[in-house]
């Protein structure tokens, strides 16, 4: 039996976080499954729970300048419904679970769960998203790519809470999210792929490619992306196999109960090749 806390304000929540070793719980859709026990008994939480979904400060999504500020209490359904949500994120969010789960699960929670198969995380990598971490008296902003360090591992400190997710609004004119799940709906990912690109005057001005569930964290290489910047359509087209080869060394998935390493790798590279050929080169026409 562990204690649970339901603070009324963010200030109170941060104070509790500092005072006790607690697990922040928003929607609970991952945690309640992770710690479930015999039905009719309490879940086996290893430490106390801090309920944060009702905190007024964490509610809501707003557009601020070129950024979207998504409160840590915003649910996946809220994110999907918000008109300025970038397409790649909206598509990713709508590919998660089923409406009932999306109505309670939060985007911040999906990030903190830090699953390599987390579908929103794949899109957030491609969007250069950051998380805002607060503790009593201070605040820091960390890119999602740096926030997540391994499966289920983040740099969140024991006295911090994620209070918001900041997403840069896309200037991208090409944007796709593709999930290969175990079935067509209400499924976990075998792998996922997010791509956003901005094409200006016939050349690539910006590009971000992220692969989910093919490594311990989402895979993205800013280095490799740089090679594409400034390239024309013909240059991309003639370099497709080289780009695919470059990514091939970075994508090292595993076999598990949902798919095989071989399939994940091959299909990830197929999705990349298909994106470069169809959406990217096609979009530059």
């Amino acid at each position, binding site marked *: 039996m562990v204690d649970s806390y339901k603070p009324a304000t963010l200030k109170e929540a941060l104070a509790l976080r500092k005072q006790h070793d607690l697990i922040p719980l928003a929607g609970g859709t991952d945690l309640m499954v992770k710690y479930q026990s*015999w039905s009719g008994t309490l879940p086996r939480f290893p430490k106390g729970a801090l309920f944060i979904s009702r905190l007024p400060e964490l509610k809501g999504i707003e557009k601020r300048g070129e950024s979207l500020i998504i409160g840590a209490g915003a649910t996946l359904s809220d994110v999907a419904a918000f008109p300025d949500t970038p397409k790649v994120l909206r598509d990713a969010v709508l590919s998660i679970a089923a409406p009932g789960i999306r109505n309670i699960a939060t985007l911040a929670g999906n990030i903190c769960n830090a699953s390599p198969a987390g579908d929103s995380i794949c899109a957030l990598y491609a969007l250069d998203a950051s998380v805002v971490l607060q503790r009593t008296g201070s605040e820091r902003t960390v890119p999602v790519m740096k926030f997540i360090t391994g499966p289920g591992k983040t740099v969140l400190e024991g006295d911090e809470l994620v209070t918001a997710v900041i997403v840069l609004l896309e200037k991208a004119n090409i944007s796709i999210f593709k999930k290969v799940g175990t*079935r067509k709906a209400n499924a976990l990912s075998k792998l996922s792929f997010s791509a956003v690109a901005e094409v200006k005057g016939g050349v690539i001005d910006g590009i971000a490619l992220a692969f989910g569930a093919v490594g311990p964290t989402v895979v993205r290489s800013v280095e490799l992306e740089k090679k594409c910047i400034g390239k024309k359509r013909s240059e991309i087209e003639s370099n497709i196999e080289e780009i695919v080869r470059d990514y091939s060394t970075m994508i090292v998935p595993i076999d598990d109960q949902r798919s095989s390493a071989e399939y994940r790798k091959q*299909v990830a590279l197929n999705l990349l090749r298909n994106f470069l050929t169809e959406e990217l080169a096609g979009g530059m026409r």
Partner: protein
Amino acid sequence: MSNKISTAVRRVDAVEKASGRARYISDYEFKGLLYARVLRSEKPRAKITGISKPDFPEGYYYIDGKDIPSEGRNNIQMIKDDWHVFAEGEVRYIGETIALVVGPDKEKVLQLLSEIRVSYKEEEPAYTIAEGLACKGGPLFGDDNIYGEYNLVKGNPEEAFKNAVKVVEGTYKTGFQEHLYMEPQGMVGTWEEGKLTIYASAQCPFYIRKSVAGVIGVDEKNIRIKQVTTGGAFGGKEHFPDVIATPLAVAVHKLKQPVELVFDRIEDISFTCKRHPSEITIKTALDKNNTILGMDIDTRINGGGYESSTLIVLQRALLHGLGVYNIPNAHVRGRAVATNTFPSDAYRGFGAPQGLFAIELHMSQVAREAGMLPADFKRKYFIKTGDMTVTNTTMKDVVKLEEMFKAADDMSDYSRKVKEYEHDPLKGIGISFVNHGGGFTGNGEQEIIKSVVKMKRTGEKKAALYVSNVEMGQGLQTVLRKIAAQELGLDYTDIDYDNPDTDIVPDSGPTVASRSTMVVGYLIQECAKKLKTRWDEGIGTETEHHYVHPPGLVWNQDTLQGDAYPSYGWGLNVVEVEMDPVTFEIKTTGIWTVFDVGIPMDDTIMAGQVSGGVIQALGYASMEKCEVLDGRFRQHTMADYVIPTSVDFPEVKNVFIENPYAYGPSGAKGAGELVFDAAAPAYADAVQQLTGRNIYEIPVTPEMVMGALK
């Protein structure tokens, strides 16, 4: 022409189930209820060398084999009684029941369980059919790990192979399949008026009664089983409930208090029976004109740690081994193999789907070897009335396969598409033909089950029917009422039919084997006729009717020769698919089915059976991967054991071909399993055409398609 009985009515259970008012076992309240949880084996194969227990506080109990009364026995009487109620010094699979921990507070029960230490002397386990046959770790059963072997011979297969110009061979594999009924396994045992009473989510109340009576060591009449509204079963609640009911009964017998044993979902997927995995090697001997001279079929199924009903499943796989074909010379061999996986048991189709998957896929492959398209080739060998079956008797059904093919072809445009897709790398269309024997195999109905049904006039315009068969989602409570009402000239809502209670209903047999409508429905029809002639004797008048085997059928259970089934349902499925060349995902773009179930008993209920059976089989064929890793099912959550959702497959387009059966109610035949049988081979056949590569195994996952295309 539509029959009156086929006209759909509102199901009697529709509103209470759709509105959530129906009460399932977990919804019942019992005063002083105790909760039981199973202490399970953690090892796949081991001797138990010791069990250390913490001190149990008052009101908490450790129940094991020592609590079985001296008159009873530690064996569960299913088909074979080798499965123990509680492990006896050794364990043969992970999850085997060692003991129950029982008490009023679940948290305390869990704590006590966590403090029990079982010590094992481990032995080397065998998990697969090949490991079982190789007696890995030494034999688990007999000296060869074979629970049973059968050989069916028709004609002279040896001669056929001697004369063969070409032999086509393939080995076809199917995996475990989880039932995933909506309501997990569960029951509550109580001591009521001096009688051990069990409220059960189950298909076969009298099976449970027999098992429990044997374990407690009392006459069956001293045990009472009350079936409660059951949230799906698919065969998973045929025998397996005995594995829950018997340890529960031992606890209730000792404590004389109500005890609940209800599985959680993960527990249910991890530790209940699955469909038998199969490996079936088929060789076909062809002459120079590519005409089939004979076949050799070698069937192996994985029975798991205990035999239980495995041999009956194997028999059905063999009896359906030649599918719908008249093969002049054939040897059908079958072996059931002992391994250290969770024991396999009944699942919709009971062995037939495995046998039919192999023969259908093989026939498509032989067709291509012979330079023909699958349907053209298969149709040449359709069995006809009067042809010899694999059990050396004549086919007595009126076989309408050609008419069914015509209907399917008209609906699906199969004949045109199959030619068009022959060289299309992204599209394929598959076809399969099946039959399914209704009712128990061979002499089961007349020698073992001996069903009895009862009816009673209960009011001016009211009657009640008494059977032991259960509603489990298939619509039986509506269908049997319709049958009775039609004979009595009443509305179906004027007939009462409660969930069976073994103290009240006669034993009309288990709710299995596509027998409830065909066999029990016929008994109800005949019983209602009797009641009608005696209607004027007044309220309270009762009539009974006993099973009589249809005339002209013979069977020898020792040799498995004769009329294996009184009648067959017939079916054909066409499945059309497309592949995403980037992800190798297969999208099903069309499903067309034609079934001969005699006369459909209710159009809506039968549409549900067809959709449910076909989509369940497509899940089996395409996504329901269930691997064993270190003796455990690797996909044991609903996140990882995936079944189709409503968006995974398109609507099933179906027509029924009417073909009334003289000994079915209003001409009905068995249907519940038939609708499962054909979709998996049709799907695999479609993927074969798409990839241009033979498929030998289901589920055909995108991973497998990628591998095939390499």
